[in-house]
């Protein structure tokens, strides 16, 4: 598999890997085709993502995408985190092989689920996925 050095770095030294025991929101997303599962934990205060951790069962691209995505949303507002696209993750990773782009979508979806999990727990209505968003399953 032809991964960029950036991907390999995030794969070998994943940032924010682990679990937040008292998470405010948890999102889990799986790809039924390749069997992979990604879990995102967020800790929120004042609408800001104070801490984020991930657990991933998946390929190199899935692990690297999780790691990069968590880095990109840490310290951001929920709105900013919601706007993070898989495309931005791929770019930050200096590209992914074409058949591995779907792995980065997993990260975007898991973050959305974590944010909505938080919103529901707060008694807020969940945000809706954008129309026409790339669908990958």
């Amino acid at each position, binding site marked *: 598999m032809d991964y960029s050095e950036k991907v390999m770095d995030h794969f070998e030294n994943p940032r924010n890997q*682990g679990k937040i025991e008292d998470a405010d929101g948890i999102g889990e997303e799986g790809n039924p085709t390749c069997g992979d599962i990604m879990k995102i934990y967020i800790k929120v205060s004042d609408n800001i993502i104070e801490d984020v951790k991930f657990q991933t*069962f998946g390929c190199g691209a899935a692990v690297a995408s999780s790691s990069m995505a968590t880095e990109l949303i840490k310290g951001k507002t929920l709105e900013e985190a919601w706007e993070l696209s898989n495309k931005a993750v791929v770019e930050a990773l200096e590209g992914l092989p074409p*058949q591995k782009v779907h792995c980065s979508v997993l990260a975007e979806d898991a973050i959305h689920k974590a944010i909505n999990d938080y919103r529901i727990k707060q008694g807020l209505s969940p945000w809706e996925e954008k129309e026409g968003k790339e669908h990958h399953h």
Partner: protein
Amino acid sequence: MDNAATTPVRPEVLDAMIPFMTHSFGNPSSLYDIAKISREAVAKARSQVAAALGAQPKEIYFTSGGTESDNWAIKGVCFANKNKGKHIITSPIEHHAVSHTCEWLEKQGFEVTYIPVDKYGLVNPDDVSAAIRDDTILITIMFANNEIGTIEPIAEIGKIARERGILFHTDAVQAVGHVPIDVVSMNIDMLSLSGHKFNGPKGTGALYIGKRVKLVPLMHGGDQERKRRAGTENVPGIVGLGLALELSVSEMKETTEHLKELRNRLIDGLLKVPKSHLNGHPQMRLSNNVNVIFEYIEGESILLMLNRKGIAASTGSACNSSSLEPSHVLTACGLPQEIVHGSLRLTIGDMTEEGDVDYLLEVVPEIVQKLRNMSPLTPQELRTT
């Protein structure tokens, strides 16, 4: 540790090939002599391959590899015998060179029965016998599986096929040069092999075709190979294949003993990892093949980490296949979807040393632990962080 994928050409084999590439055989040699030297070298290679299989030289046809041999054997018999019948029997764990060929033939109107395998990947000869129909024209079952290393009961299947008068092909790409083979006593009608699996050159292969077999060419054209396989002979490749096979067979006993010892140490060591399982048959397996499953983790990740440590390996994980589907072999052995993704195949060769095994047994458990710590599926008691 990916010797089942491909092996480098042995130095003595390369030396034998080079004069046929450059056409320089030292002096004195006219151009006329070159043709003669080439012809004799091809004849010698044909004898070497025949000897390795217990066949006659005129039953050996050179091809461009295992894939061509498989395609030719199966399509060749089907197109030649379609007036006799349309039914093929095979297994669900064949290499894609066989399985995709069968699938294409289904689209052309042939019918295929897939004999199920047990959890070790073994075909039961009684099942083959029961699947034979009046219109069965071919049985194709692989000699040894490339992923899990299981060796099939070829002699038993051959006996049934011969008794029932049905042609029997075996894809022996993983077995030739590694396991004793005798096409006569095993009642094999056609057998595929590939040069680069036993330290011969890539892009070379052969098909053994027994005398009673009727099949059409896959390569139409010139009169080469007794008019059955057209195309300018790849003389250096053929010379290399013949010598590499002769050397492999002459060293087989010794190599096998050495590999079995290393293989068993590897298997024992890897199975010490909790929640790990061996794939394939514990005894009826290739001496170079180790295939284990580690629960809760994904195969491509293991490969990447191993690669970083200088070790090549292979996996049946969906993430590592271009189709994003898990190994059809492991699935056919009945492994549940949750764990099929964590498979790791290590295949050793004569270059593998004890130190390599020690190193592997040191790094694999560390990698497995690291990935398990990362995985959302891992139960708490198996985590270290």
